[in-house]
C-alpha cells in the first residue's frame, strides 16, 4: 500500500461519521496506521457530539424581550 492510498483528513472524518464509500473504507482493513488514526478520530467526534447543551437562566427570554424595540402602528418603536 503506497502513501497515496492513505485516507485524507476529509475521508477519515467521513469514515468516522459512517459516510465513507465502501471502496475507500476497505483501505482501513489493510492499513494499521490509517485504522488507528480513524478510530481515534471517531472516538473524539463521538465525544464532542455528546457534549451537553446548557440553559441560560429562567428569565433569559424576558430580559431579552425587555430590551427589544417593538414596532408600533404609528411607526415609533418602544423598548
Amino acid at each position, binding site marked *: 500500500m503506497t502513501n497515496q492510498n492513505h485516507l485524507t483528513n476529509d475521508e477519515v472524518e467521513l469514515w468516522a461519521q459512517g459516510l465513507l464509500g465502501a471502496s475507500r473504507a476497505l483501505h482501513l482493513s489493510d492499513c494499521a496506521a490509517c485504522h488507528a488514526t480513524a478510530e481515534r478520530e471517531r472516538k473524539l467526534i463521538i465525544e*464532542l*457530539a455528546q*457534549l451537553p447543551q446548557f440553559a*441560560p437562566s429562567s428569565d*433569559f*427570554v424576558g430580559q431579552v424581550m425587555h430590551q427589544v424595540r417593538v414596532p408600533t402602528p404609528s411607526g415609533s418603536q418602544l423598548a
Partner: protein
Amino acid sequence: MRRYERPVFSLIYRMVRDRALAEDLAQETFIKVLNGIQSYKPEFKFSSWIFKIANNAAIDHLRRRQLDTLSLDGSPSAMTPEAMSASAPQLGTGAESPLQEVESRELGGQIDRAIARLRPEYRSCILLRHVEGYSYEEIADILSLPLGTVKTYIHRARNELRVHLDAARE
C-alpha cells in the same frame, strides 16, 4: 427564540467559560437579532446568521479581554519593585463562589477543558462542526473565513484536542 437559546448560550458559554458573561453576550446576540431582523438576508440560513452574531460577540469579548489583560508582575510602567507590587492584580483566595462551582461542574470535564485550551478561532470551528453539526461551508459563512481555512482549523483543532486529552488521560 426558545429554539436557539440553548445552542447559542452553550456556544458562547464554551467560548468564554463564564456563565454570567455568557448570559450577557447571549442576550446581546438575541437583541441584535430581533432588532436587526430587517437586515437578515434570506439567502443566508437563519440559524447561521444567529450563530454568526453570537460567535462575533464571543470573539470580540475575548479580544477585548486579551487587550485588557494585566501582567501578573503589575503595570509595565512600574519602575520599582514596590510600584510593581502595588499595581499587580490581586489574586483570589482560591475559594470558589457558588457560580464558579456551577461552572466547574458544567465545564470541568476533560473534553471541555481540552476545548478551552484551543485558540478561540479553533474553538469556534470545532464547536460549530462537531457540537452544532454545521457543514464546512456553513462554518465558512458563519465565520467569514475561506473554506480551506475552516478545514485546516478543524483538522488542527482535532489534533490539538487529541494531544490534550491523551496527556490528561495518561
